[in-house]
């Protein structure tokens, strides 16, 4: 054990980060924070990819991470844009206020 990070440890961290993201997504009411939580979940998945890539000695996982990060950047840009647009029209980013689909 020469201080090298075990893949299993990385997976555990990823699980914890994913849990934080999920928990935040479910309980926070602010859309912006929810968006950040989604990013957290996404990054935990990336972490998993890296871990499994290391575990299997394959470069495919690392490669996928690069793709995912690219898409995630685009996705968060769109998400932020949507949140801003919603804030403009509805004057709020609180999910309790935004229930227009219900009626």
């Amino acid at each position, binding site marked *: 054990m020469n201080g090298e990070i075990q893949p299993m440890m990385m997976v555990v961290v990823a699980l914890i980060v994913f849990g934080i993201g*999920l928990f935040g*997504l*479910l*309980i926070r*009411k602010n859309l912006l924070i929810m968006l950040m939580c989604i990013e957290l979940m996404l990054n935990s998945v990336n972490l998993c990819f890296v871990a499994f890539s290391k575990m299997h000695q394959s470069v495919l996982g690392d490669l996928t991470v690069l793709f995912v990060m690219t898409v995630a950047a685009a996705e968060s840009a769109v998400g932020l844009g949507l949140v801003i647009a919603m804030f403009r029209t509805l004057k709020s980013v609180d*999910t*309790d206020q*935004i*229930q227009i*689909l*219900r009626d």
Partner: protein
Amino acid sequence: MNLSYLILLPLFGFLINGVLYLRSTRNSKKVSAELSGGIATVAMLLSFAAALYNFFLLRQLPAEGQLFDQMLFPWFKLAGMSVDFTLRLDPLSSVFCLVITGVGSLIHLYSIGYMHHDAAPAKYFAYLNLFCFMMLNLVLGATMPHVFFGWEGVGLASYLLIGYWYHDPEKVGAGMKAFVMNRIGDIGFLVAMFIAYKFVGSLDFIQIANTPLNPEMTTTLGLLVFFACTGKSAQIPLFTWLPDAMAGPTPVSALIHAATMVTSGIYLLARMHTTIEASATTLSVIAAVGACTAFISAVIACAQTDIKKILAYSTVSQLGFMFVACGVGFTIAGVFHVMTHAFFKALMFLGAGSVIHALHEEQDVFKMGGLRKKLPITFWTFVAGWAAILGLPPFSGFFSKDEILIQSLQSPHGSMPLFLVMMAAAFLTAFYMTRLLVLVFLSPSRMGQGVEKSVHESPLVMTLPLMVLGVASVVGGWFGLPIHEAHVEEAAGSSGRFIMLASVALALVAAFIAYKKYGKTTKVEQVNDIAREGFKIDAFYLSFFGNGTKNVARWMGNLIEQQVIQRMIRWTVAIVDLSGNLLKVAQVGSSQAYLMMMFLAIFAVLAWFLFGVGQYAKF
């Protein structure tokens, strides 16, 4: 021989006048009665010439093969049913063609004078030509659907002309009544066609006549055809429309409701006489209905005060005579009476029209009187018609009517009761006709002062047809003389001659009584008995069938439609609503709640597969 001109000329007249009328509605310039009437009359006269020409051509053919078919175009053909648009000229249709075009042209001519002041004469003449076109189709059609085409077409033209002055809801109603009652009869025609198709396999009259059917079907077919005739020819039970049909212009009453359309029932029976005469039941029903109609409507006619209504009931009664002729299996006498009746009844209607015209639309006979001097031509021609309908020799009615009376006793299907009823009807006929003549022309005048001054004889276009028809009423019967004499000779001379004498004597007695009773009438008579209202038969139909249908319809609309059908739908809607409401609970609206559900579902699925929860669940 080409028959298409015969029917196409009135059609062209109809189209030209129709277009003229429609154009006049757009540039609001009235088409004069002379122009439109001239077109229509010329069309009819040419058609009459064609009919005459074809009549003589037909006469030249050998006696056995006096039949000419002209196929115009195939009509419809489907799975064994094939019907062509074929015109067929034989002696029967030839006679009818002559009557229709001949009397028709005269009435067209008369209408030019009568409709002179009307707002849209082009429309009137278009309808009149349409009627003649349809009527010619009716008598020339070689197949049942072709006759039905004309049959419905004349009904339509009659509807249009009865309700010609459509501003008056009452007249519109009269037209509607005529059309609907005709259509009730048409059910008989339609079903007869279905039966003919099913059992004969063809709708051509010759095929139908040549194919023997089983007795029940023959009777059914005959009775259905007869039912159709009761509608068109105003017999019991469907006769009440004809008196109301007098709402139309008087020339229309003369043409459609006296001379031609109402006799199409006789035409149809004559056309199908093989089928009719093959069943004794059919014959006796026809004779009984004809006799009852002849008698009852003669009674009603005695109580009428409207000049046109008297003539209308008289027409119904005379049609009854014709049906009796058919009913005793002696169709030719019926057809002969159709011809003579067309002459004298058209004459009387036109005479009545002349009177009404002179008196500014006055129709009550008790407000007339003493018109003999003022309307001499009308009077003398009317007298010719009167003598004809009374059956005085040598006027035309004498020949045809006496033949029917003789046959009602002496034919194998005739009987004493039938004969007595017919004699009574003939007696009543003489009575009400003399009453009419006396009240209008001979008795002291009961007209208002203003009316009396302005009374004048009608112009020549109106009196000329009167004179022609007057002559025809005298000589019309002579055409049938050869047949007549042959049959009278055959009918065991003495009793036949006795009946002849008796009927003439009876008519004279009735005329004398009527003259005595009404000759000195000076004041307006108020009759209010049941006979005047046509024994309330019409009121009964109205309340029973008319309102009955309406009530059933309303009941259906309110009860079945609203309470059953719509309620069923409402229940279905309620079920859908309920299930929707139940499922709605899950739709709380908060996005985080949805997310929660989503993840719970994902965990559940994961649990199912990863941790083997599924193996404990048993389905």
